[in-house]
């Protein structure tokens, strides 16, 4: 049962829970984290890919992204954001995001991205 999982980091419980259910309904294994700190406290060995919310209290999405890349983690990281602007997008890409999605998103688009990421 050590199949790679999709790690989901979002401080909003409903968003996090619904994303996990969507992933599970398509056959993925999902693992949820309510904050960046909780993720960092976990051994990321089974992380197939990461779905990351940008706006969180404490360590923000962009900061987590930078930290993980700095630690040499190469797995795909898909960033989800409720508010988009050019400056922030540029920052996210520069921090090493694999993909960037706006909330609310098309489920198929998300699942395609995750499938692609897990296959990578």
């Amino acid at each position, binding site marked *: 049962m050590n199949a790679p999982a999709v790690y989901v980091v979002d401080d909003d419980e409903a968003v996090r829970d619904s994303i996990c259910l969507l992933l599970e309904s398509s056959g993925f294994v999902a693992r949820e984290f309510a904050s960046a700190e909780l993720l960092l406290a976990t051994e990321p060995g089974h992380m197939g890919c990461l779905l990351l919310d940008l706006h969180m209290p404490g360590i923000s999405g962009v900061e987590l992204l930078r930290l993980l890349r700095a630690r040499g983690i190469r797995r795909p990281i898909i960033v989800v954001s*409720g508010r988009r602007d050019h400056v922030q997008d540029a920052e996210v890409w520069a921090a090493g995001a694999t993909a960037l999605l706006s909330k609310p998103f098309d489920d198929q688009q998300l699942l395609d991205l995750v499938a692609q990421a897990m296959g990578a």
Partner: protein
Amino acid sequence: MRSSSLQSEEIEDRQDLSDFGTRGQAGLLAALLATAVDGIIAIDPKGHILLYNQACERLFGYRASEVVGQNVRMLMPEPYRHELDDYIANYSGTGERRVIGGGREVVGRRKDGSTFPMYLSVGEGGLTGQRFFVGIIHDLSALRWETEQREGADRLLAQIVQSSEDAIISVALDGTITSWNAAAERIYGFSASDAIGWHISMILPPDRMGEDDEIISRLRSGLTMEHYETVRRHKDGHDVLVSLSVAPIFDASGVMIGASKTARDVTERKRSEEKLLGMQNELAHVGRLSAMGQMSAAIAHELNQPLTAIANYAKAAQRLLQNENPEPRQLQSAREAMEKAVTQTLRAGTIIRYLRDFVEKRESRKCPEDMSEVIREAVSLGMVGHSHSNIKLVLALKPGLPRVSIDKVQIQQVLLNLVRNAMEAMAEVKRRELTISCDVGDEGLIIMVQDSGPGLAPQVASRLFQPFVTTKADGMGIGLKICQSIIEGHGGTITARQSGPGATFVIQLPLG
């Protein structure tokens, strides 16, 4: 014996001045002159002073030794001095007497040059062939002064009444107008001559005809009226809104004979009050809209969360049900997903309702509210969009807070405003701590919003609650003014003070 002694007493009683003898008469005269309160003076036909009593010394300030033998002119100012000369010349020439035997008001001149009014009576006499005139001088200064004072006071009162901004009128008990000042002319349109002698009903609107009788009977029962707002009718027919004060008028024996009425025209004040109120409402609305502009981005983000979750849950349920024969576990999962989706639509609805309440311009509606809940909701709304700002939020709400009758939306608006101000204040500081506390004290409910920002600039602190005062680059400076209006509308107060590094806003609300 007894009867004879009585007789001798009667005889003694009948003594007259002639019994005093020449020396006795001279002594009596001297005593009379010395005792007289009025000045007594005698002159010869050329005007030389022959006699000058003690009262004269007091009146004129000259000693007798200074004036006896001098011309009486020295005691008279112009033009009386010349009149005297003419009079003496006239008298000596024709024997015509103009003053003699009578008296008249003239003016005396004191040693120091000052003058005083006096009543002078003059008589004429002769002694061993020499003619002389006697003058009795009654000082009128005190009387004149009293009269002037009284007239002055009357004049002053009349001037005060005339110059008053307020209509001041008096009426007799039967409602007849007895006086009418200039302001009454202006406020009611009738001139004093048009009004005095007429009935007060001339300025009463038809639906208030009985009011004057009521006022009089109130006064009779010892009640006065102050600042009673009522309506009067102007000569040209329009209504005048007045603030009326009424007091009884008594005659010298203490019997009430009428009433004085002071009326201030408050039409203009009322109009500007209404205008001001309208402007305040308008301003509050503008303030809300402007605050809403700043908040709409944050709200949009907040709405995005439930919408995202709803879409995900619905899509997940759809996928779980795609199988021809879904497993019971999948069916259960789909059902749960749909339920969660519904919960999220309610969450979205709540956010939208908040937004609408926030923008809506409406009358104050007070209901007993759970203050703990009111504060929690307001603070969480205030934190919208700041959940990633690293702010340590401390809610110190006393357990079991009483329900307080407030307009929930308005009070939450105030709290929201204070919370968002606090957030902005802390944007540039390292340690960000927001403490919201609520307690019950002697003065009622005390809510404190304390931040760890840079605090209040001295030049702003004193004017904090004035409109259009702000330190924010994009602020209009009306937020706190609106907060103050709302809190005062609840009978409470809002104050601000420096607290450690930051600022503390203290709201006091009555519990009643």
